[in-house]
């Protein structure tokens, strides 16, 4: 907000290059999203959306927009995880850990990964599973090849139990309990026509996928969720992108966090242009045109020193608004050609490589909105389990899922530890009374 507009200035200019700003707003309004197609039952083509947030990449500004989530606020856990996720974008973290990588890699255990943003991360100690945790990744887990997954190789010793997608019809527990397959890809993009058909069938078809949680931080990984981690070669889209690909190694976020964001907002050195990322602008933006044309507003306040030496050509073309305010020294030496072209109101951080806008650097992706979260990332959590030997009772304290309106819970008891065997599942006992609506019945999706 500018002074003089009748509004009070809330953000001092002298903090703009040293502070990040997080705006918790009701909803994120966006123009037509290219990832939403007519065949999906979800439609976010109109504003406001249910996107969880967006951030500069990198930069100083982020928004958390959970007003269209449950209770108009989402749960405190999702608020925390989304804030950390969007902050990560401003500090140069991506959904995959590296440029061009894929979202939802099981070997990237980070809140930046959609697999873990809403559902959280879990540690496993023996047979004890932690409450969900929000964290950036802490290690470089090995690369994976989706066409040739070796269950026995696992991922080594992990900081957290991982998570992945498995075919619904090979997942022992999902098939037994007749759960609902995912209705969006993990990155939020819509399913293909064939995938959607299989997901909505009764029973679901071979292309239907379901999210699966690991129960160990070491050893073999049961990628196909058939109850045994013993298959030497499994071909499976564990990241549920719609294709089986090579998944690069994970990264350690904590070693990659780049807290520098000076220049993250609009300024003369932001080296960017609308429609292209930082690297695109550098590689394609050189221009030898020899004119200067200012067709839009141009407002420069120099409150400090400003020293520019042009030893070569310098070409500026402003077709939109451009606002520069230097409160300190600024020194630019151009020893060669240099071209800055602002075709709109764009700065380094303002192309928004956050969670909504597809981009060349971060790879194509959808967005993590409420529908995506309900579609696959949703689960209740047993916070506490108290056994009363004399009364022969066990009391489960269950916390609601982080997305979606709960109609009913189904609690089960099986004999033995995990992994749960087919025999144990077949002999499962449903316990307690469905809550809060005993009359609520579950039907297969159409």
């Amino acid at each position, binding site marked *: 907000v500018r002074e003089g507009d009748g509004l009070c200035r809330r953000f001092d200019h002298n903090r703009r290059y040293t502070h990040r700003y997080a705006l918790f707003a009701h909803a994120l309004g966006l123009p037509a999203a290219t990832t939403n197609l007519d065949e999906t*039952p*979800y439609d976010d083509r109109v504003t406001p959306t249910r996107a969880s947030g967006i951030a500069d990449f990198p930069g100083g500004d982020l928004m958390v927009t959970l007003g269209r989530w449950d209770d108009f606020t989402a749960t405190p856990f999702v608020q925390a995880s989304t804030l950390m996720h969007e902050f990560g974008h401003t500090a140069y973290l991506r959904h995959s850990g590296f440029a061009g990588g894929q979202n939802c890699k099981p070997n990237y255990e980070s809140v930046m990964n959609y697999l873990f943003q809403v559902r959280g991360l879990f540690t496993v100690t023996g*047979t*004890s*599973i932690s409450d969900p945790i929000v964290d950036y990744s802490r290690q470089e887990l090995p690369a994976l090849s989706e066409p040739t997954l070796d269950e026995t190789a696992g991922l080594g010793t992990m900081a957290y139990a991982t998570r992945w997608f498995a075919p619904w019809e090979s997942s022992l527990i999902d098939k037994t*309990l*007749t*759960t*609902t397959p*995912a209705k969006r890809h993990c990155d939020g993009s819509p399913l293909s026509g064939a995938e959607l058909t299989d997901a909505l069938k009764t029973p679901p078809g071979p292309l239907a996928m379901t*999210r699966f*949680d690991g*129960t160990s931080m070491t050893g073999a990984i049961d990628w196909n969720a058939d109850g045994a981690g013993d298959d030497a070669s499994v071909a499976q889209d564990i990241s549920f992108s719609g294709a089986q690909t090579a998944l690069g190694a994970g990264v350690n976020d904590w070693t990659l966090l780049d807290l520098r964001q000076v220049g993250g907002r609009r300024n003369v050195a932001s080296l960017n242009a609308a429609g292209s990322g930082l690297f695109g602008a550098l590689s394609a933006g050189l221009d030898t045109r020899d004119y200067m044309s200012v067709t839009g507003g141009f407002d420069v306040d120099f409150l400090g020193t400003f020293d520019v030496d042009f030893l070569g050509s310098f070409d500026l073309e402003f077709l939109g608004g451009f606002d520069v305010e230097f409160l300190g020294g600024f020194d630019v030496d151009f020893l060669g050609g240099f071209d800055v072209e602002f075709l709109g109101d764009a700065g380094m951080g303002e192309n928004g490589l956050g969670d909504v806008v597809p981009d060349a650097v971060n790879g194509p992706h959808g967005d993590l909105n*409420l*529908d995506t979260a*309900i579609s*696959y*990332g*949703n*689960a*209740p*959590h*047993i916070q506490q389990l108290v*056994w009363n*030997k004399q009364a*022969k*009772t*066990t*009391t*489960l*304290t*269950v916390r*609601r*899922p982080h*997305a*979606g*309106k*709960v*109609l*009913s*819970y*189904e*609690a*089960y*008891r*099986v*004999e*033995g*530890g*995990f992994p*749960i065997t087919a025999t144990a599942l077949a002999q499962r*006992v449903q*316990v*307690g009374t469905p*809550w*809060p609506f005993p009359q609520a019945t*579950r*039907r*297969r*999706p159409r």
Partner: protein
Amino acid sequence: VTIVDTNVPNNRLLTYFVLAVVENPNDLDAPDAHGISAYRVLNTK
């Protein structure tokens, strides 16, 4: 939410898990049952 199992056998290793049935915002007549909780193991020995 509290759910009580009233007939717990002794001397067993037991695993509990919970499934949530949630409203499908795009079809209220077809709830979704996507999420299975993390497992909780109980030793009643």
